[in-house]
């Protein structure tokens, strides 16, 4: 498995950190940020293999962050991870190019499967 370069964007700091730790244990390189603006700055600076994006961020709403990320770099897959997902949000995110829309609590195995599928698609 390659060392995937992931970005985790979530205002629930402890959740984001814990997820980062678990993914690191599984050989990923994780960067964590807690608001939309930081995420946009990071995406501008670096390329990521995958971005995990929460919808309810304190500064910019997740769908807007998604839209801007997609403007900057349309290739990087974005997975929406949310505790507050409505059908309307799901539709909007998929329309804007989100790769997947998963609800919290999410299984780590489920996430690893998604990573593997993306890897397959890329190769």
């Amino acid at each position, binding site marked *: 498995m390659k060392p995937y370069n992931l970005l985790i964007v979530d205002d629930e700091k402890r*959740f984001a950190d814990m997820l980062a730790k678990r993914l690191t*244990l*599984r050989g990923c390189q994780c960067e964590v940020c807690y608001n939309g603006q930081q995420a946009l700055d990071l995406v501008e600076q670096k390329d990521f293999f995958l971005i995990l994006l929460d919808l309810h961020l304190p500064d910019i709403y997740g769908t807007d962050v998604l839209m801007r990320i997609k403007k900057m770099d349309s290739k990087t897959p974005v997975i929406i991870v949310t505790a507050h997902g409505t*059908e*309307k949000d799901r539709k909007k995110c998929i329309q804007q190019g989100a790769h997947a829309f998963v*609800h919290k*609590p999410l299984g780590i195995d489920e996430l690893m499967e998604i990573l593997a599928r993306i890897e397959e698609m890329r190769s």
Partner: protein
Amino acid sequence: MIERIRKALGPIWPEFFHQDIKLLDPYMTFTDYRKIWTLGISVLIATALVPLLVVTIIHYRLLDKSVDSELRLRTERLASNAKRAITFFLEERLDALRFTVNEISYDRLTDPDHLEEILRNLKLGFGGLTDLSVIDRTGKQLAYAGPYNLEGRDYSNQRWFIECQQHNFYVSEIFRGYRHVPHIIIAAKSLREDGSFFFIRATLDTERLIRALQSYETGAHAHIFLVNRSGVIQTPAKQHGDIFQKMSLPVPVFSERTRVSIAKDDKGKTLIVGYAYIFTQIADTPFILMVIKHKAGMMQVWHQLRSNINWFVGSGAFVILAVIIITCTLLVNKLFHADKAKAEAMALMEQSNQLASIGQLAAGVAHEINNPLALINETAGYVKDLFVLKERYGHDDELIGYIDDILDAVERCGMITSQLLGFARKFEVKIQEVNLKEAISDVLVFHNKEASYRNIKVCVDVPEDMPPIKTDRAKLQQVLVNLVNNAFQALDDGCRLDIEASPAGNNKIRIAVSDNGCGIPEENLPKIFEPFFTTKKGSRGTGLGLAITYGLVKKLHGEITLKSKLDEGTTFTITLPTQIQEGSIENEGATGR
């Protein structure tokens, strides 16, 4: 019986008389429809019928008055005419006597042969005279001409003789006298050249007088006769009394003119009495002319007319009243139905809003729980990772078992929150492929506990090859939830519930929900899908569950039917199309977030 009347009356049956759905009361614009109805009818009667009745009464009074005064006038005119005739009759004969005594000498008058000749001439000229006699100042009859042998009679004590001495002329009442035949005496006093005086006296035939009077009688209701001043009847008076008897009416008050008064006869009937005291220019007379008319008889034509008018007004009023009542009932019924429909819609909407609010609340709770749940999940997961992936913590299977328990619990919590979110999403319309078996088992998740607690056996029979259908999953699930809830309420502990699905052909599927519970009485079957119909006492049922179910099935373009037998069980059968188009179901307006 009531049902039969209700059918016969159709739309004019006053349904608003009994508004028995208490649940609707807070939503009704008006509460007392009977009052509105009564008020409407009263106002319409006041504006339509009262003027009609008032005008009729005024009209009657005016007509009564004018007919009355017309009757009086006619009576008065008749009395005047008859009075003139009587007066003329008497005056003419008094004049004849006066002429005779002035023209013919005393000697000739006292000569019986001459007197006979004079009588003959007078009879020829005037008629109505029976005999003629000449009486000297002492009252002794000097000469007589006529059919009776009365010569030599002494009249000195008689009233006519005394009165004629005083007043020169005299007219007597009608009396029988020596002759025993009704007659009138008229007499005149004449002065002789030597200063002495004598009397000439004539007897008048009453037949002629009576004929003259009767010629004025018109119709059966008018009677004309003479009475003397003491009220003794002088000429035939029919029912008012016999001749020479006192008349039944009181003697009228003296008046020089003809008068009319109102009196009652002995039977209490109203009489119009016209009367005139008769006096000639030559002499006073003892007669009073009476003209008596029966008011009722005279009014007969008017009464006939009045009864016709009464009939007409009565039937008119009845028609107006009927129209008023029918119109009022129709209008109030319409108003009531509109109000009731509005109240029902509002009650249903509130119910639906309530459900939506519960949905929103559930979604909120689920969302809030999801975040800490995710943290527990990741933390426990990380601990497990440490144990599994890092060598330094070693492989402690017992600890890993505990962590797995935590992770399992988190997964179960996650399922619950996702079901709660699913409940909230019932208000969003979404046409999707639905696997019936899954949909049914999702619904039963909510009932598993109750079923096992109450020992109710739930059997689901969906063929393995049943193709998925395209419909609104949330609405279908709500229909199933409602039917299962309904069945659970009807079931006793230890009974069974069957849910069967099968293809129904023609691009349709059939789902049957059967229970072997208490069943539904036959009389309630037609009302079972009506809103607010409930047999559950107290606050347990709103009567909306099956009504909402019915509405949802209709929205899914399906049909719902039921079969039930008391104490044997009930089967609800839903037939749904296998595919419905997106956009063919409207949203209810209430949505989750």
